């Protein structure tokens, strides 16, 4: 019962935030909507016992990534909110068609699946997927240790790349 109420509340705030991201004219409002969605999804993670991932979501996404977004928005200037002038011919028409196809497809799959995509035959065992730090670390440092090392390399490369891009002087145009 508790999870049902939590799900309804957090689903509403997540969807409201997501709509805000798309609709808001000011990019700062878009960032705030994204913040609401990220927090709501983090609460849904906790409801599904993914404690560690929820904490990482709040720290990395809501903390670091969104701060970076806001920093760049302020750097570029808030007043460059787009005026939605379409320069490409017929773009809006094709976007409308693609949007209709996507919505129909997602709605059809969702309703056609009868909310039963994942086979519920297996007894749900809360202990098996209790995402504590110990429980996450065990597969992370045994089965997935190579991928873990690769992500370390990836983060190093991306940090170096960001610094290289920041130093990019560019031709005087």
């Amino acid at each position, binding site marked *: *019962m*508790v*999870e*049902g109420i939590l*799900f309804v509340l957090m689903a509403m705030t997540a*969807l409201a935030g*997501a709509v805000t*991201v*798309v609709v808001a004219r000011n*990019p700062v409002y*878009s*960032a705030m909507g*994204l913040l609401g*969605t990220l927090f709501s*999804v983090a609460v*849904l993670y906790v409801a*599904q016992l*993914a404690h*560690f*991932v929820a904490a*990482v*979501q709040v720290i990395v*996404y809501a903390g*670091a*990534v969104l701060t970076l*977004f806001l920093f*760049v928005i302020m*750097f*570029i200037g808030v007043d*460059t909110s*787009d005026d939605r*002038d*379409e320069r*490409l011919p017929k773009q809006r028409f094709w976007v409308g068609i693609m949007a209709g196809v*996507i*919505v129909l497809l*997602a709605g059809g799959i*969702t309703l056609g*699946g009868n*909310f*039963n*995509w*994942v*086979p519920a035959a297996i*007894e749900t065992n809360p202990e*098996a*997927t209790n*995402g504590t730090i110990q*429980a*996450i670390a065990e597969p*992370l440092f045994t*089965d*997935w240790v190579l991928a873990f090392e690769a*992500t370390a390399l990836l983060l190093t490369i*991306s*940090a170096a*790349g960001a610094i290289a*891009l920041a130093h*990019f002087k*560019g031709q005087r145009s």
Partner: protein
Amino acid sequence: MIVAAGYYMALAAALFVIGALGMLLRRNVLVMFMCIELMLNAVNLTLISAGRALNDLNGQVAVFFILVVAAAEVVVGLAIIVAIFRRRSTASIDELSDLRG
């Protein structure tokens, strides 16, 4: 009472569709980037709920890796946006069509 995984999947599908529509509709590079984050989060939600329904912890490990890759992607992407903005003084995707074939 446990909410069935399908409802989480439906919410994730809705979030993904909203992100995809934002990707198609908006012209501002930063907002398009945020829509990518929205879609990544939708996929993360499906992985978590599928992992719980199937009693498999590897779903959460996959989400962990996706978070790391998304963080790296944001760092490089925003650096590119700033570098472009320094040269062109615009954040609109329609102005940045130099690479089209």
